[in-house]
């Protein structure tokens, strides 16, 4: 019973983890795409000039 519960919990945890990584990957891909937008391309020098990173 306990083993089943802990197995189910581990499985649920794995699903959430995969979902989390998936969401993170989507957010990062969107952000990368955002840097290619014409507005940001025009502004990148100003962004860098003020030590954005």
């Amino acid at each position, binding site marked *: 019973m306990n083993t089943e519960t802990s197995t189910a919990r581990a499985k649920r945890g794995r699903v959430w983890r995969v979902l989390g990584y998936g969401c993170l990957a989507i*957010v*990062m891909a*969107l*952000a*990368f*795409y*955002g*840097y*290619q*937008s014409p*507005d*940001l*391309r*025009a*502004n*990148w*020098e*100003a*962004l*860098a*000039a*003020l*030590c*954005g*990173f």
Partner: protein
Amino acid sequence: MTSVSSSQSNATRTVVIGTLIVLVAMGVRATFGLFMQPIGLDKGWGRDVFSMAFALQNLAWGAASILMGMMADRFGAARTIALGASLYFFGLVGMHYAETPLGLYLTAGLLVGMGQAGVTFPVILPVLARAVPLSSRSTVMGIASAGGSLGQFVVVPTGQALITGFQWEGALWVLSLLVAIVVPLACFMRGKPETVVGGQSLKSAIGEAFAHRSFHFLFWSYFVCGFHTAFITLHLPAYVTDSGLNAGYGATAIALIGLFNVFGSFGAGKLGGKYSKKNLLAGMYFMRAFGILLLLVVPLTPWVLYLFAAWMGVFWLGTVPLTQGLIGQIYGMRYAATLSGIVFLGHQVGSFAGVWLGGYTYNITGNYDLMWWIGILLALIAAVLCLPIHERALARPAAA
């Protein structure tokens, strides 16, 4: 059993909220460059006004990190974070209403800089480190550092979209509100180091660190970290255009630095839990030297630029969890925020030196070659400085 799971859930909550705070703080700061053009056009200010404001911000951030660290160690992190977030928020609101350059210096410069000191790494990382078992400390520091890197990477295009959609005024309000959310979140970051009767005082902790050569090695290696990151971000645009590449390549390069920085920060923290932090730190500076050398010896093409950006991104802010991890490991967690603040001042002074010397050598020689070589030399010096660091906790006589 219940108490163990409750303490685990508290630790998870602290790590998630701490990471979120750093994400917001670092992310909003990274967008400031985007406001230069629209605000400058509106108010008639040139690049010099913004450069001065942000130079002040960086110095205020470094200097106030020591005070905020002391405050966190003395009165607890929650109050410090709430104060930092409030100053940051009022700085952003003030930036909105600033009508003169002096107004911008005081708001976007001093207030925001002081605010950042209360909501970034030197204050947040010790709270997270104390919330988890020793074996997980380095990993959670890596997670929070990666959160800061993710904020820098993700909030910038979001800020640009906000400026496009709502003009700079609307965008600044949204970002200000984002920072304001940190104030209530600070309640979840309660906790200050345990005070032992007859234990070490702040003054003696600082004296002890200053008398220990490893602390100086950490300070100067962090100086080099700031030197590299500030020089590269500030002068990369000019280097790219001088080399005949157009601005589009530069934008992608910046994005690649941001993207790989997220993985590098997390990886450094994770590896720091398994391997010697000082060796990893030395390796990181050595790899930076190698990356800069690549840029110098290989003719610059878009793909060389991308490779350089990704390479430097991996070794960008990975220094944070390792440097702060070493401080906690060697000097203990009691005054970790204060000591981290002192070392962070070295980072900010290095940033200032990198930006200034980059411009100075360019004016003298007409190119950045000398500066890149200085960057390589400093990276090698930093790597050599890290190797003799004594990683073991300082032995102290037991409190009476």
